[in-house]
């Protein structure tokens, strides 16, 4: 989609999204579930796709598909241009200095694992320390634990307070001469806390320690400028930002990426191969072995076009309105406890209901057509911190409305009636 699109909202005053026009772009929102209009509030798990992105995928598959980076024929050149064009869109979207700092991966998890294998295994050793936070998704814990186990390194954890905010003084105290790496989330998927990552990156850099930011829950919802943050690595997925599954991005500073070892070997990541010696390709291709999900990459580019046509500031403002409205509405619900009350919070509302397990809440909400996530949200250390096995989580995106939050609240009243 281009900036001249009919949904161009970016020029409107901030916080004034035209919900009806936005919703019209998302065909799936017209669905009925169990005879009720779908109320989709599971956006932190995966967002829905607008027609503009669907159309782009169809156009690619209908008239542009061939393998990339190798053919001299028309289709291969067309596909390569579209795929590399999408990389350039990502570069601009996150304000990376160069397109070669943008590596295609399968998603955030794959991005973190790439850094663990390519950087961690080369530069972290016995007795070294890696700092993560209490708020991490398992995908930003487990790879580092695997590395610690392999190398005899140690994981250190930044604690959080009862609101779900990281304790920055404790964070500063974790640094010592053994600290080699920091891996922290920009926005907590379980609680919605927006971490002050710019400040935290500066702290790490004072100790000469590089930082990876898990941006999966941030990039769909706010402007991210990797140069301004000065992060060394930034990881995210397309499917949480109106794009397809199966594709994600690892941003890395060129100097670090060049020092790193390739993670996977194969085609496309080499310059020359003999049985005696293989010369690796330059970045980003050094890290992109094999035929990638080309359509998904192009779809990510289309998703960025779409989000920019709406305006990231507008999206952030809309979600801020929604979380404010929902928090207020939940305040009037008897026996409902909001988990995660940070001052800086994205559009994530995690909650428990007294005497009702979150899975029972989720099943009854589903009958009302309301889709929420229930469980530990792949963040068991967060659940342990708050002494609960699980939560129900409503998470918002640009197409959600206050009327949908009213539906959620009405459905919660039904849960209360059933469980008494």
């Amino acid at each position, binding site marked *: 989609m281009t900036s001249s699109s009919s949904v161009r909202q970016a020029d409107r005053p901030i916080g004034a999204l035209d919900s009806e026009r936005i919703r019209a772009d998302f065909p799936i929102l017209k669905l009925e579930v169990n005879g009720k209009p779908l109320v989709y509030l599971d956006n932190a798990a995966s967002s829905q796709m607008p027609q503009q992105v669907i159309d782009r995928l169809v156009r690619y598959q209908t008239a542009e598909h061939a393998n990339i980076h190798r053919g001299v024929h028309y289709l291969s050149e067309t596909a390569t241009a579209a795929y590399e064009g999408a990389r350039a869109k990502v570069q601009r979207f996150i304000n990376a200095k160069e397109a070669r700092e943008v590596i295609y991966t399968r998603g955030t998890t794959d991005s973190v694992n790439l850094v663990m294998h390519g950087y961690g295994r080369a530069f972290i050793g016995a007795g070294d320390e890696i700092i993560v936070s209490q708020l991490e998704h398992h995908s930003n814990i487990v790879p580092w634990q695997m590395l610690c186990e392999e190398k005899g390194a140690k994981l250190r954890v930044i604690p959080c307070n009862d609101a779900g905010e990281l304790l920055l003084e404790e964070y500063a105290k974790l640094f010592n001469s053994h600290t080699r790496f920091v891996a922290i989330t920009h926005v907590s998927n379980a609680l919605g806390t927006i971490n002050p990552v710019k400040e935290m990156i500066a702290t790490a850099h004072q100790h000469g320690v590089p930082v990876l930011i898990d941006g999966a829950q941030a990039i769909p919802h706010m402007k991210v400028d990797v140069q301004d943050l000065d992060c060394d690595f930034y990881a995210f997925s397309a499917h949480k930002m109106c794009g397809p599954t199966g594709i994600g991005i690892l941003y890395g500073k060129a100097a670090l990426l060049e020092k790193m070892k390739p993670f996977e070997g194969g085609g496309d990541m080499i310059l020359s191969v003999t049985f005696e010696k293989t010369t690796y390709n330059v970045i980003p291709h050094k890290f992109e072995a094999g035929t990638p999900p080309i359509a998904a990459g192009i779809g990510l580019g289309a998703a960025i076009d779409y989000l920019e046509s709406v305006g990231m500031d507008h999206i952030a403002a809309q979600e801020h309105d929604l979380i404010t409205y929902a928090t207020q509405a939940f305040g009037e619900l008897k026996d409902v406890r909001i988990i995660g009350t940070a001052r800086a919070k994205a559009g994530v509302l995690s909650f428990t209901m007294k005497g009702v397990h979150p*899975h029972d809440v989720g099943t009854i909400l589903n009958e009302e057509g309301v889709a929420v996530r229930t469980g530990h949200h792949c963040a068991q250390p967060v659940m342990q911190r708050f002494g609960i096995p699980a939560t129900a989580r409503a998470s918002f995106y640009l197409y959600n409305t206050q009327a949908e939050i009213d539906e959620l609240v009405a459905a919660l009243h039904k849960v209360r009636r*059933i469980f*008494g």
Partner: protein
Amino acid sequence: MESKHLYQEVILDHNRKPRNWGKIADATHRAEGLNPLCGDHIWLSLKLDDGKIGGIAFEGESCAICKASSSMMTTNVKGKSIEEAERLIREFRDMSTGNLDTASQPNHLGRLSVFAGVSDLPSRVKCAILPWHTLHAALNSEPTISTEGDRDPVATER
């Protein structure tokens, strides 16, 4: 699937007031059951007397479906032989996975057929089956079972 079909009064009642809650002090068999996806976690203990289940108790943290299923299981298998208990385990699993229609096919489930509705809710099948799977483990002297991995009761072969 309307919740009034699944969340029937009998299930809500067993959730509110679980029967046989706690542990058997002189248990001959014990097992721990875990559903890592939703966090259901139960401990089951029982005492075999003369080849029959003399006493049985459970405790833990779980959703209403798992807790009610556990509670009703304990009341149903008490006094039963191992063979009878294993038959109920098989029938309950078949019902929950949609492979046994309690209305038209012979079975011994009785009131346990209130759980038939879970077969329409794939994400909740494991909640209902967990206590039965745990009972099977206890009777076969396996200390811990999980609804994930190799021991997934609703894995692909079903």
